[in-house]
């Protein structure tokens, strides 16, 4: 018999150790004029554009760095309103990105960006829509102007919308075939209940995709892309002055909008084990979830380090316990995800042979609890150094640096 196991445990206290890993006080704003000050390189500065938008700015003045990335997070509460179609933000962001404007066709838009080695993305989440554009510095003005037009006057061509709907529907159908997708969907439902947030994150009923109209997309566009409540980050080979004027051009003429208070869907999860029988599955997948404090409370680096150490292949407690006790030849992984800003989860997951599933599922919480109460941090320093090195390498890529700041 093949099944899915899901175990929910309450408040796993990873984030409780005190440290100052995340103490990175922002520098004081500096004079507005552009100077190539070496000490400004890679320091995060809180700056203001000529039109008064505050933004986080990290210039990178280094040989070989020619790219610029701008990211803007627009607050959105679409996911929390039962009266709204939950598929709209997915279809809207895709159409906005590739559908062109009144002046430029989708094909021309794609060619324009490809010829300039540039690109962008718009990612809808429960609380924000994250927009990002990357471009080499020599194309800054062209790309910013195009991005600004696209943001302000997207063309929601019904034929293009139809294509986007088709590809989203296909992606979901494909993902739903996977056994682990079925498991996480069930976990989400058990955690969140049958509420609008669950529907937004899951799109359990594909008919909502067909029901999306151009009017809905326009309404979503109008109320999402405003000038209020934004978090803006600019990094790369750019002066503060150019960064400020680029942000102003991007946001110019968008509605003022108003900031709605953040949604407080604080889900209390009860410890529970859920089984899902999937007769056609070949293996049994186990998923264990625990609640973590939101990243806004800090200590997320501690969580990351503690969990990486726990699940590290080779020497980590999870790995060695499962190898020794279960003689398992499979791998388990651990990590984090967010349902929304307030609800962060830790997960431990892996697939096992059906006959071992019950034992492994019972063992993992014990291994975790042992680790939580009496961790052995002999190899922690190595892991820590490894993470620092990797981070240093990663922030060399302008767009990863911008995500880190955001």
């Amino acid at each position, binding site marked *: 018999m093949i099944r899915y196991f899901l175990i929910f445990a309450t408040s796993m206290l990873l984030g409780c150790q005190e440290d100052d890993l995340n103490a990175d006080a922002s520098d004081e704003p500096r004079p507005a004029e552009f100077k190539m000050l070496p000490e400004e390189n890679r320091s995060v500065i809180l700056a203001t554009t000529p039109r008064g938008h505050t933004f986080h700015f990290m210039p990178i003045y280094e040989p070989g760095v020619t790219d610029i990335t701008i990211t803007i997070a627009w607050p959105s509460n679409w996911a929390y309103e039962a009266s709204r179609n939950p598929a709209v933000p997915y279809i809207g962001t895709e159409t906005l990105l590739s559908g062109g404007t009144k002046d430029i066709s989708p094909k021309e838009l794609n060619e324009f960006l*490809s*010829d300039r*080695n540039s690109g962008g993305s718009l990612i809808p989440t429960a609380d924000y829509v994250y927009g990002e554009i990357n471009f080499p510095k020599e194309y800054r003005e062209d790309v910013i102007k195009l991005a600004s037009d696209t943001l302000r006057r997207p063309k929601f061509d*019904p*034929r293009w919308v*139809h*294509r986007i709907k*088709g590809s989203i529907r*296909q992606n979901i*159908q494909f993902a739903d075939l996977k056994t682990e997708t079925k498991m996480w969907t069930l976990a989400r439902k058990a955690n969140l209940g049958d509420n609008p947030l669950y529907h937004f994150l899951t799109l359990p009923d594909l008919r909502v995709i067909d029901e999306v109209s151009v009017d809905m997309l326009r309404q979503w566009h109008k109320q999402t892309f405003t000038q209020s409540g934004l978090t803006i980050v600019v990094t790369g080979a750019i002066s503060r002055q150019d960064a400020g004027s680029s942000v102003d051009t991007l946001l110019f003429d968008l509605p003022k909008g108003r900031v709605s208070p953040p949604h407080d869907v604080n889900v209390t999860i009860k410890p529970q084990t859920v089984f899902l029988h999937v007769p056609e599955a070949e293996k049994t997948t186990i998923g264990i979830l625990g609640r973590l404090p939101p990243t806004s409370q800090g200590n997320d680096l501690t969580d990351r380090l503690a969990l990486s150490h726990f699940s590290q292949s080779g020497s980590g407690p999870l790995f060695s316990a499962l190898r020794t006790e279960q003689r398992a030849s499979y791998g388990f992984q651990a990590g984090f995800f967010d349902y929304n800003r307030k609800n962060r989860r830790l997960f431990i997951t892996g697939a096992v042979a059906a006959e071992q599933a019950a034992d492994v599922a019972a063992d993992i919480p014990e291994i975790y609890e042992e680790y939580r109460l009496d961790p052995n941090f002999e190899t922690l320093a190595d892991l820590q150094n490894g993470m620092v090195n990797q981070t240093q*390498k990663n922030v060399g890529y302008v767009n990863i640096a911008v995500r880190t700041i955001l």
Partner: protein
Amino acid sequence: MGSKHLLIEFTAEPDLNVSLSKLETEFTKVFNEIVQQGIPEKTIKQIKKRFQGHLNDVLKRKNYRKNLLIDRVSNRQPYYGLTAERRALRSVTAQKINDLLTALGQSGRTVIYRANEL
């Protein structure tokens, strides 16, 4: 496919209110035109420039090349260094591409597969 043959795939989905056969007719028409007339030199230059930018971005990354090397070696395939990749790209001419296209246009070289929506 092996070291002597190339498989090129095109896929297309009809838009709203467009039939599969209409799409196929239109696609075949354009495909035949391109095969007969060749791709203009200007377009090829444009595409080469994009590839150049891509190579500059990606291939310079140390880990990318390391992983690529491991992948190629473990699959017993030859590995070309960054300079060789750039040289190869420079040596691509419109003539070479259009010769390949002419070969594609000969009879018996294309297979069309139709699939209805899931």
